[in-house]
């Protein structure tokens, strides 16, 4: 899970990393109160769990009440990479001398935490120049390594001290919360030579959530995502009209790719997990029935030893119970597929022997 900026900053504050004054709000009434408390000028920042906010107009300077009244609702209404605003952060304007880059991430191929730092921050990581990369094992960063990083960034005196201090705090935070990525971009040298985190990114390892009840409050899930999780499914909502269901993340991704290649627009990614039972497929159909935009359902199950008749029963039951009233285009690989096809004769579920055929039928089917 990627935390929102203001949530990441709450953690930064807890670990003593320097921050500008800021307050988050979810409506303009609250925002007005905060504007008074904070005082102009300040920056309005959209809170979405994706990057590229600045480019999309999600970060706006605000000098007075008039600007605030125009810009707050504008920013609140933005959708960035499909993500609507979760909140708005008002943050004091900063008097910056220089922007740096600092992050610690879980290095997947080296299997250890790794620092990336640069004296040229404030741009997306792909464009950050002169990156200093240090692998630091599984423990916190040592004084020695922190000093090396500051030195290689070309920093001296107060600036170096500030960065070393920030890096050590950031590393403690990363390890203690088991983060996959913690990034400060930009980390700024202020006019008064202090070091401050102007932005914050924090990605958790969701698999370690059970050890971090303190992060639970940041878990933001839609009702449907929560239900999916309870059923042990993985669900990612997308904005098309064909729901994609399958067993196994790789297989569902592959189905999504092929559907897109053929001009179809996926409405969701739904992985019911390794096996497929009457219950799990019925549950998946129930979930999908709650997505209004869905016009058809594409099911791709690689059963192996699963009886496809078991899956066919789930479709029949879902129609019978009026859970769904949508056409289902299904490829079921497994045993007894002829019998399953027979069972579904006359229902709104069509079974195909290849996924390609099911996809073509789904794309044609939702056009009608």
């Amino acid at each position, binding site marked *: 899970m*990627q935390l929102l900026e203001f949530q990441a900053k709450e953690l930064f504050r807890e670990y003593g990393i320097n921050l500008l004054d800021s307050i988050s709000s979810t409506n303009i009434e609250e925002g007005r109160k905060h504007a008074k408390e904070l005082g102009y000028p300040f920056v309005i920042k959209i809170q979405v*769990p*994706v*990057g590229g906010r600045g480019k999309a107009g999600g970060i706006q300077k605000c000098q007075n009440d008039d600007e605030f009244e125009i810009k707050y609702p504008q920013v609140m209404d933005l959708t960035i*990479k*499909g993500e609507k605003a979760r909140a708005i952060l008002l943050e004091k304007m900063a008097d910056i001398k220089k922007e740096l880059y600092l992050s610690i991430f*879980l290095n*997947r*191929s080296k*299997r*250890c935490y790794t620092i990336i730092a640069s004296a040229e921050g404030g741009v*997306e*990581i*792909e464009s950050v120049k002169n990156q200093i990369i240090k692998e630091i094992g*599984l423990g916190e960063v040592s004084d020695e390594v922190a000093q090396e990083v500051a030195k290689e960034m070309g920093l001296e005196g107060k600036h170096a001290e500030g960065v070393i201090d920030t890096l050590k705090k950031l590393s403690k935070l990363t390890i203690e919360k*088991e983060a*996959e*990525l913690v990034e400060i971009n930009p980390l700024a040298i202020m006019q008064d030579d202090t070091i401050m985190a102007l932005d914050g990114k924090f990605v958790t*390892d*969701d*698999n*370690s959530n*059970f*050890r971090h009840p303190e992060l639970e409050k940041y878990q933001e899930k839609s009702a449907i995502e929560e239900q999916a999780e309870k059923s042990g499914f*993985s669900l*990612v909502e*997308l904005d098309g009209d064909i729901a994609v269901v*399958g*067993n*196994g*993340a*790789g*297989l*569902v*991704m*592959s189905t*999504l*790719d*092929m*559907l*897109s*290649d053929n001009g179809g627009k*996926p409405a969701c*990614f739904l*992985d019911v997990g*390794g096996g497929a039972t009457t219950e799990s497929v019925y549950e998946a159909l129930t979930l999908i029935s709650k997505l209004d935009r869905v016009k058809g359902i594409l099911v791709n199950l*690689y059963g*192996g*030893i699963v009886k496809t008749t078991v899956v066919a029963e789930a479709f029949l039951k879902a129609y019978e119970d009026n859970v769904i009233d949508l056409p289902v285009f299904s490829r079921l*690989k497994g045993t007894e597929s002829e019998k399953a096809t027979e069972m579904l004769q006359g229902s709104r579920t069509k079974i195909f022997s*290849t*996924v*390609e055929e099911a996809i073509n039928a789904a794309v044609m089917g939702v056009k009608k």
Partner: protein
Amino acid sequence: MTDIFALLKGNPEDPDFEKKGVIVQGITGAYGSLHARNMIAYGTNVVAGVTPGKGGQKFEDKVPIYNTMKEAVDATNAKISIVFVPAKFFLGAAKDALEAGIKLLVAIPEHVPVRDTMEALELAKQKDAVIIGPNTPGIMIPELIKIGIMPPMPFKAGKIAVLSKSGTLLYEISDALTNSGFGQSITIGIGGDPVNGTRLIDAFEMVKDIPDLEGMVVVGEIGGDSEEMLAQRIIDSGFNKPTVAYIAGRAAPKEKRMGHAGAIVMGTYGSAESKVSMFNKANIPVAKRPAEVPVLLAGKMEKSD
């Protein structure tokens, strides 16, 4: 480098040649018992199970159960274990196994915290042991030994090595290969987690020198850079057996985790484009659909003849 065949098969002079013992950790759980049965049915020599507190009992009236891995290893001398415990107990189970002398540990659980995987890997390194997974379907030499949860149906003995991050895609693609006459010499499930005990490059090192290997299939997906590293390794090593890749997740949105903990694109890191372009650089065709894999492989073989 690990001689995976020595571990899985052994040498003809070994008394347990082609019937290496396997210990099942978590053998009395619903999942562990189901797959212990399936593995035995496939011909895998399951010599012991471990479930703390159930030592002294027998699984299916045949396989002895022990409380700890040390007891199980002392009694059987097995070097292979497969772990079915819940994710939060994985690290404990892995330590128990590695300390007891296990050299190949197959980690089935999904949702293992990355930190636990990294700690298990550090220990494995010290003990000169290999971990496959976590979040893997396992490893198999078709028609000989299966240490995993894969259904037997898609696989057939042969001369193609298949390395896959995904479980069901491994089945799907092996099925397609089998139907086209390409049996498999070995299949290795890398797993869908961000950190893999055996990375694609490690798996490649395990299979590249198989004497009668006729080709290799790599089933990757978005996230991380292990496909890119593999492509580079293939270029550097001059490996020239026909190789075909498949990458799942081209249509996935960025910064969303697509089912697997490791399947996430951050910026351009982990993107399908990056992987496809590296494979292209290594002169490895990338299939658009699973069904295309055997077609491309046959094409590659024709050219190399």
